[in-house]
C-alpha cells in the first residue's frame, strides 16, 4: 500500500536531498529508501565502526596546521541543486583551494558510491564559497590513506542525476524494489529489507496457497 504524497504544486523550495542519500542510493536505491522513507537504521558492525570514527571527526570547530585550516563537521548546502549535508572535514588551503575530505571506515572503491558523495560535497562548497572545487578526497580507515577524487563533468552529471532520482523517490514515497544480489550480504538494512523473501515470489505464492490447505491427517501415528 504505497502512499501518494500530495502534489507540491510548484510552491516552496525543492525537497532537499541529504548528501548521504546519494551514496546510499548509488549503492542500492532501496537502501536509501529504507533510511529516508522508513526511518530504518540498523547498526551492524560496519556502521557502528563508522559512528565511532565519525565521533572523532565530527567535533565542530577548526584546527590550524601550517598553511591548511581544517573545519570539522561543517554543514553544507547547495540551494540550486537542493542538496544539504555535513562534511566530515573541509580543508582550506593557503592558496585558496577548498578540499572536502570524507571519512570512510571501509575500503575505498574507485568510481564507487563514496565518489558521488564527495563530489556532492564539492558542489555544495563551490556554491557556498563562490569558487571552483575541482577535487575532493575520501579517507579510508581500512586503507589508512586518502584517495583523491577528480570532480569532472561526468561525476557532476552523476550527482545531479542521482539527486533527481532521490527526490523523485521522496516525492512518490514509494520504496524501490530490492536488488537482491551480492550487495545485500554487506548491507546493514538486510533484516528490515527482506530481499530474499521479496525476490522469491514463487516460494511466497506457494506458501500463501498452502495456508488454507494443510497436509492431510497422517494415516496412523
Amino acid at each position, binding site marked *: 500500500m504505497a502512499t501518494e504524497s500530495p502534489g507540491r504544486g510548484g510552491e516552496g523550495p525543492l525537497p532537499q536531498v541529504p548528501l548521504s542519500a546519494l551514496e546510499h542510493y548509488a549503492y542500492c536505491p532501496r537502501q536509501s529508501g529504507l533510511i529516508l522513507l*522508513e*526511518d530504518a537504521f540498523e547498526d551492524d558492525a560496519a556502521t557502528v565502526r563508522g559512528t565511532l570514527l565519525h565521533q572523532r571527526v565530527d567535533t565542530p570547530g577548526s584546527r590550524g596546521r601550517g598553511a591548511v585550516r581544517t573545519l570539522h563537521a561543517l554543514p553544507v548546502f547547495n540551494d540550486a541543486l537542493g542538496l544539504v549535508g555535513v562534511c566530515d572535514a573541509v580543508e582550506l588551503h593557503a592558496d585558496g583551494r577548498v578540499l572536502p575530505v570524507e571519512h570512510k571506515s571501509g575500503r575505498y572503491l574507485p568510481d564507487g558510491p563514496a565518489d558521488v558523495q564527495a563530489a556532492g560535497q564539492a558542489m555544495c562548497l563551490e556554491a557556498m564559497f563562490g569558487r571552483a572545487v575541482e577535487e575532493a578526497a575520501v579517507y579510508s580507515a581500512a586503507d589508512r590513506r586518502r584517495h583523491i577524487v577528480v570532480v569532472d563533468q561526468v561525476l557532476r552529471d552523476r550527482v545531479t542525476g542521482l539527486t533527481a532520482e532521490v527526490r523523485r523517490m521522496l516525492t512518490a514515497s514509494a520504496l524501490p524494489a530490492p536488488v537482491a544480489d551480492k550487495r545485500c550480504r554487506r548491507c546493514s538494512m538486510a533484516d528490515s529489507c527482506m530481499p530474499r*523473501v521479496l525476490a*522469491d515470489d514463487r516460494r511466497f505464492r506457494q506458501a*500463501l496457497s498452502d*495456508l*488454507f490447505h*494443510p497436509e492431510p*491427517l497422517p494415516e496412523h501415528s
Partner: protein
Amino acid sequence: MTTELLNTLYVQTQGTELRLEEDSLRIRVPEQEGRRIVPLRRLDAIVVYGHVTLSSELIARCARDARSITWMSRGGRFEGRLDGAVRGNVLLRHAQHQAHDDAAVRIAIARNVVAAKVRNSRWVILRAARDAKGAAQGAMRATAGELADALPEIAVAPDTDTLMGYEGDAARRHFAAVRHALRPAEGIPPFERRIRRPPTDPVNATLSFVYGLLRGLVHGAAEQIGLDPYVGYLHGIRPAKPALVLDLMEEFRAPLADRLVLTLLNRRQLRPEHFEHLPGGAVRLTEDGRTVVIQAWQEWRQRPWPHTLAGRDVPAGLLPVMQARLLARHLRGDLPAYLPWIAS
C-alpha cells in the same frame, strides 16, 4: 524475588523499589538486608509484576535507551509497556491505517490470521495425539479433522464478524482437545474449558499467565518495527485494546503458549503447591510458580522453529519480530499478502 534472565529483569516481590544510580539499577526488596546493583547496560528489558515502584529517573532513562519496561498485574495480566520514542516510520503507520479502512485489504489479512490460528492449533493437537492412546487420541484426531474442514469457509468469510465466529468456534474445539492432552495429576483438577478474568483453576491460571508473557513479546515486536499496536484487522479498533498485537498473537497462541503450558503441567514442573486459591474462587500462580513459568519461558524463547519464508530456523523469541516485519512489508506494498507463520 527478582530474576535476571537473558538480559531481562523480572521483578515479582511486592513492594520492591527500583531506582537509577548513575548507570546502574538499584534494587531494594522490602524486609531484606542490603541492596542489589545491576549495571543498566546488562539489561534490555524490565518486567514488573504488581506493586513495584520505579523512580521516574529510571523510567526516563529506559525510554531514552530504548530499554523496554513492561507492567504486569500481580497475577500476570499484561497492563502496559514503555518503549521509548515511537519510531519515525510514519508512512508505515499511515499505510497500516489505510489498510484498516480498505475492506478488501482488511478482510484478506484477517482471514490469513484466523487460518494460521487454526492451522497452528491443529498442529499442536496432532503433536499431542501422537503421544496419546485410545479414545483421547481418537478425539484429538477428530478435532484436527474438524479444524481442517473449517479452513475453506475461513478462506471466503465475507466479513470480520463471520471470521470471529469461526475463530471462537476453533478456539472452543482447540481447548476441548487440550483437555485430552493433559495428563491427570493429583491436586490439579481436569481442565474443563478456557476461563479468563479471573481464572478459577490451575490450568487456566497458567494459560493466562503465559498469554501475558506472549503478549508482551508480540507488543514489543510491533513497536520495534514501528507498527501501531492499536490498529488491527481481525480485532479492528477499540479503545485501550492493542488490536494489532491481538491479531499477531493468534498464530502463536497454540504452539508457543499452550504447548508450553502442557509441557509444564505434564512434566510436573508445576504442581498444586504452585497455585493459590483466593477467596471467591479465583486461582493464581504463587510467586514460586511464576518463577518456574518465567524460567521455562526464557528457555522456550530460544527454541528454534522452522520458518518457510525465511528459509531457516528462527528462535521463538524472534518469530513475532519476523512476522511484524512481514506485515510491514505487505502494508508498504512489497508483498501481495500478509503471510502468517505456520508451525512445522
